[in-house]
Every structure is written in C-alpha cells, then in structure tokens.
C-alpha cells in the first residue's frame, strides 16, 4: 500500500493519474497528509520497485511516497465494490 503525499496539484487529479496505472488495484483519497492511499499488486519486490520508480514517480504533484509492504494477508473481502467508479 502506497501512502502518497501531494504538493502543488489537486490531489484528486493525482489520484486519477495514479489510478490509470494497471497494477494499481485501488486508489482512495484521505483527509490530511498523505492525501492518497493506493493498493498495488506487484509480482515481487523488483516489480514493486519498477512501478514506484517508473510510472508512479512521473505523476505530477507527488511530493512523497511511503510504502506499507504487506507480508501476509489475513482477510481480503472481494464481494464488495463500487460500480459507479
């Protein structure tokens, strides 16, 4: 999960750009800093690094990225979604 801090651009526009990347499974807006949280599905650490240093890093307005790397997923409820997105 990437915690993205935004500077100099509307956080919603940054969220849209980050969401345009295929490996990004979800993007949500937060109140405060960081303004965006994005869930990434990477194959491995190399792939994660490629995504962060590649397509994500070039999105305008990103001031800082912090990553929570998930070691073990205990619960992933997949029957809930929003169809209006």
């Amino acid at each position: 999960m990437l915690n993205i801090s935004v500077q100099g651009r509307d956080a919603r526009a940054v969220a849209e750009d980050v969401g345009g990347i295929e490996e990004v499974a979800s993007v949500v807006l937060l109140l405060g800093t960081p303004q965006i949280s994005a869930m990434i599905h990477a194959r491995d650490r190399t792939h994660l690094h490629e995504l962060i240093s590649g397509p994500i890093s070039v999105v305008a307005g990103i001031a800082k990225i912090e990553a929570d790397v998930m070691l073990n997923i205990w619960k992933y409820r997949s029957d809930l979604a929003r169809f209006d997105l």
Partner: protein
Amino acid sequence: MSDELDEIDRRIIEILGADGRTSNRSIARALGVVESTVRKRLKRLENQKAMRLAVVCDARVLQIEAFAFLRASVAPSHTRHVAQWLSSLDETSFVADAIGQYNVVALLSVHSRSELADTILEKLTVLDGINSVEIREIAGITKHRWDLVRIP
C-alpha cells in the same frame, strides 16, 4: 497460486471477467477448443486459486458508506492474535501484516461514521498488545479493481 497461466487460461478469465455467466460451450467456441478443455481448465484454475467465480455487490446497496484505514503498531508477540481478531470482525474488509512503523493494517468498511467511531473506541481499546493506532478516514474512492483480488 503458483503455476503460470497460458494464453487460453488468460482468455477464459477475460471472457468470464466480462460476463461470469458465459457458458463453457460459448467459451470453447470463442477460443476454438473443445468444451471439455474449458471445463478442465476452469476446474484447474479454481483449484490452484488463480480465479474464482463470485458475486460482487455494490457497497452502497448494503449501506456500507464509511471507510477508514486502521494502522496499528502491535507488540510482535501479539501481532498474530490482533490480526486474527481484526479478521473476525464484520467491520473489516481487509487485514494484513505489514513491515514498517505499523505492523498491522486493516480496512474498516462500515455503515456510518458513528459505527466507525464505535468500532475504534469500543472494540479496539479492549485488545492487548496494541501500542498505538492511526486512523485514516477515506474521503473518496477513485479506483477499485474488483476483478483482481487475493484469493485466500
């Protein structure tokens, strides 16, 4: 899930991703293979947890409209217990162990902000081993890929 998927596997998933009720016969016809091939592959894909046919419901229909990330710093000896306990709650839709300042991360998906408050203020405070908790309330959802998940 470990085995690599070939082109036919990917096409089957693509077709069922667009319409989960497509018949094996229609898939076979679209891919130019016999129906038994589709049936066997579907069974294998489900057995190896590469895919699953499931119902996805719009959260708003269930009046689930308040979301927040919970990040907790938990004593290492209690991590497993806390993660399992969080997983058992109806209020969580995602729970994981993580590396970093916070070693347990969960997504709370509930009906309202007051339910969010109840969960955080009543239920979490009774747990042993939690040093600190950070709540990040979600103000809006930009993207949610429900075709790509972790199958436990």
